[in-house]
């Protein structure tokens, strides 16, 4: 198989683009897809400071590397979740990349926030205490703490490694349940509002097969093993289902998600605005909340042992 742009021997095929690429053309393709997503959705500018949520996995490390390669001022933040060996290993991958020349040459740095140390609970404890599935407690904690890290650090924007497969799977789940309010919020850019940093998803034009290949071809080591808490979750099942469709109809996932952005999100603008108007402030931490106490403060209260007065 030959590289479509240059004719050299290819190392990867991307069937939805009806193309195969050599190493160099593939890396250019990935960076170009991110540049295009950033530009077409006006995600961020070169004068802005970006905080990248880094997990030690392929998507977030590829995102950090690509943003640096594109010349953005991007620091990283790693959130320790307290999931035993998995968290220790994922943190070591994040730290290893943070120590690499790609990061050092740009003067970028990695912030580390450890939930057990700083908030007194681990994600498995929180899941047990709240009777939530672990991924729910994890997602809630990430949204709250990463937003706070961006605001406290004076960053203009928080970037996450959600890729095309993630977004297509979330969209599939939201459509299956007709969660209209979730659909209205499923945007590649969530604008800055009171208490919320702007949040962007620059990888929406790259599938996770591409982000994994990007890491392999640039020599970025990442944690390959799946989070033990996520095994068999609904999100993974949706991804498998979508990949079965993609195998038969290459491009189906991209059409499903990117056409949602073009065709459906404008219709849902009114729903998103009405939701934003309902948001108040948490009486404990000041974070945006539609209830008196925000969901994260409730989670902390239930997941941590009571202290003697």
């Amino acid at each position: 198989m030959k590289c479509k742009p240059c004719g050299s021997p290819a190392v990867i095929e991307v069937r939805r683009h009806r193309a195969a690429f050599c190493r160099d053309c593939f890396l250019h393709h990935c960076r170009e897809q991110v540049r295009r997503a950033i530009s077409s959705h006006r995600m961020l500018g070169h004068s802005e400071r970006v905080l990248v949520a880094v997990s030690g996995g392929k998507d977030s490390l590829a995102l950090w590397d690509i943003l640096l390669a594109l010349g953005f001022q991007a620091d990283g933040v790693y959130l320790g979740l307290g999931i035993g060996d998995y968290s220790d290993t994922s943190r070591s991958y994040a730290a290893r990349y943070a120590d690499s020349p790609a990061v050092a040459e740009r003067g970028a740095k990695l912030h580390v926030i450890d939930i057990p140390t700083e908030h007194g609970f681990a994600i498995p404890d929180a899941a047990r205490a709240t009777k939530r599935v672990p991924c729910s407690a994890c997602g809630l904690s990430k949204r709250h703490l990463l937003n706070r890290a961006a605001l406290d650090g004076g960053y203009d924007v928080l970037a996450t490694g959600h890729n095309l497969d993630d977004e297509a799977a979330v969209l599939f789940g939201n459509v299956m349940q007709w969660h209209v309010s979730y659909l209205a919020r499923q945007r590649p850019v969530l604008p800055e509002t009171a208490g919320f940093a702007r949040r962007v998803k620059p990888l929406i034009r790259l599938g996770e097969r591409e982000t994994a290949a990007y890491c392999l071809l640039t020599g970025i080591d990442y944690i390959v093993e799946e989070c033990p808490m996520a095994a068999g979750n609904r999100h993974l099942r949706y991804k498998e289902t979508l990949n079965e469709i993609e195998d038969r109809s290459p491009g189906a996932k991209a059409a499903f998600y990117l056409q949602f952005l073009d065709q459906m999100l404008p219709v849902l603008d009114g729903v998103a605005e009405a939701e934003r108007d309902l948001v108040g402030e948490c009486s404990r931490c000041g974070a945006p909340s539609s209830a008196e106490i925000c969901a994260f403060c409730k989670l902390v209260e239930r997941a941590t042992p009571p202290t003697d007065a």
Partner: protein
Amino acid sequence: MQVHLHNPKRDVEVAGPLRVADLVRQLGLNRESVLVICGDSLVTGDVTLADADEVEIRPVISGG
């Protein structure tokens, strides 16, 4: 050839020569969900793997 698989980690022996796309299909995997690495190199579906090759099939789906 020896094939390394993940989640759970295990090794299986598969007879070569065999095209990458056929190996993935034979193992019941979806080519959209994996990368195939022969030695240190990423390989495309049309490459023929030899009996002596060492191959890793790396999953790319993550559930976070």
